[in-house]
């Protein structure tokens, strides 16, 4: 059936997307403002981007953030994929209900609680706070998001493909690496990207679990934002937005191309 846009639908979509995107666009535009005063337009300039390069603290924080995000996303994806397999493939076992509760609770848990509780754990076991405690905290909450992403893919793919692998003599481990993993690879990649950006974004949990010497970019931005709006922060924000947008666009382009190719292939087979 050919559906077409109705006036009501167009209006609600346009207004909705205007609401979603205008604040971000304004932020980007004002990052190119010559004037230091945020509300006065002083002409186009990229000087705030230049001054970022000389801001040692901001650059250090950015580097810490990227490292935390990379490590935590990688571990979170591995643990999250395992959790998704446990939930979708291993059937019933003792403690399954508790496990699925543990996987889904962090998704909605207020960050202040997660942050505080992890900090108290690190203090109780006497772990030095800093880079690694932030990383562990980020693995913990982002593995749950990764688990949900991978789980939904595992749920909708034909289980008999795995059975066929085992029927043909592949052990469960071989069948996972030779069959399941290649098929769910796109979901695993999006899980990694999601975990990466969640870590990149996090302010609250990192603030609780950090220690001396480990300041992440959001923490740096937050402390400056409290003092007011500055064009430098607009510039950093713009860079982060561009970074994430390009990543998401690239990922969606790749998936779109592969689905279009699949459609074309299917056509050819007719």
């Amino acid at each position: 059936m050919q559906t077409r846009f109705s006036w009501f639908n167009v209006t609600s979509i346009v207004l909705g997307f205007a609401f979603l995107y205008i604040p971000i666009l304004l932020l980007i535009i004002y990052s190119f403002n010559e004037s230091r005063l945020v509300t006065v337009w002083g002409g186009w300039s990229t000087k705030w981007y230049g001054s970022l390069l000389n801001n040692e603290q901001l650059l250090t924080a950015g580097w810490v953030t990227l490292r935390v995000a990379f490590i935590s996303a990688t571990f979170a994806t591995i643990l999250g994929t395992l959790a998704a397999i446990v939930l979708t493939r291993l059937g019933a076992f003792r403690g399954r209900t508790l496990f699925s509760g543990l996987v889904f609770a962090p998704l909605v848990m207020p960050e202040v609680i997660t942050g505080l509780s992890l900090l108290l754990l690190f203090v109780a076991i006497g772990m030095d706070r800093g880079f690694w405690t932030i990383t562990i905290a980020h693995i913990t909450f982002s593995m749950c998001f990764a688990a949900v992403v991978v789980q939904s893919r595992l749920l909708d793919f034909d289980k008999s493909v795995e059975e066929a692998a085992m029927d043909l003599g592949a052990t469960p481990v071989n069948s996972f690496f030779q069959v399941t993993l290649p098929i769910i690879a796109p979901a695993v990649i999006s899980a990694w990207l999601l975990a990466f950006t969640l870590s990149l974004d996090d302010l609250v949990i990192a603030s609780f679990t950090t220690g001396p010497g480990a300041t992440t970019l959001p923490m740096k931005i937050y402390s400056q934002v409290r003092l007011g709006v500055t064009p430098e922060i607009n510039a950093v924000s713009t860079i982060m937005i561009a970074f994430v947008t390009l990543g998401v666009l690239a990922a969606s382009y790749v998936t779109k191309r592969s689905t279009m190719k699949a459609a074309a292939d299917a056509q050819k087979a007719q």
Partner: protein
Amino acid sequence: MRRWYVIAAPYIWLLLFFLVPFFIVFKLSLSDTARAMPPYVPVYDMTLGLANFFSQLDFENYSFLLSDPLYINAYISSLKIAAVATLFTLFVGYPIAYGMARAPREWRPTLMMLVILPFWTSFLIRVYAWIGILKKEGLLNLFLMNYGIITEPLNIMNTTTAVYIGIVYSYLPFMILPLYSSLEKISPALNEAAEDLGSPPWRAFWQVTFPLSMPGVIAGCLLVFIPATGEFVIPDLLGGSETLMIGKTLWSEFFNNSDWPVSSAVAVVLLLALVVPIVVFQRAQQREREAV
């Protein structure tokens, strides 16, 4: 057996870094503040034994929370702000999700991506973007005064209104996505059938579409309400001194007053307040998954 290794890795991680910390929070909420590092007593000491340790725990912090209206007000106002903001988000999100679900098929993936994209960009940055818009000499006032709609600048920044705007804006994708996925499953033929049987479009919507989209409405509302209740960044950056929210209270209790036991008690109570919605959410998710 290999199966157990697969279960053990994520299970042990979550037990150690998610469940155990909650017990520590609970234990700490029963402890007393101390000028030491860590800043609380008792610290478990092998030489004194368990009995001694337990005898030092009490509910003092909870009676303190109850006796100070600041905390009670913060709780009530958190729940109120989160509930009202959730309703606003539903009103804003529903037409968008509906429009997307009824858009031509080839447009839907693009629209989906446009909704998800802001969700991937930093939460902090998106809240920050509103400061420049809402403040007294901000872009909104500038715009409205420029076109003569108002003569005096609106005072939105540092009020509860700004917090509502911030929550609706930040959590809108969480509302739209579940709504969209349940609306998309509803065949337009159902509305056509209702109209064919004599129900005008508006009534057909209320009698057919809306009831069928309830799973999405419930999931979306819970996904907004639960984290919004404990929200810290939005009330801290956009709200004023009169905006009381429990997440902010916990933060300042911890970072400004360094009172770990009281902040733990605040966390325990916040968690208790959220247990019901969290359980409802999990049940709903379970049903969804089993229906597949």
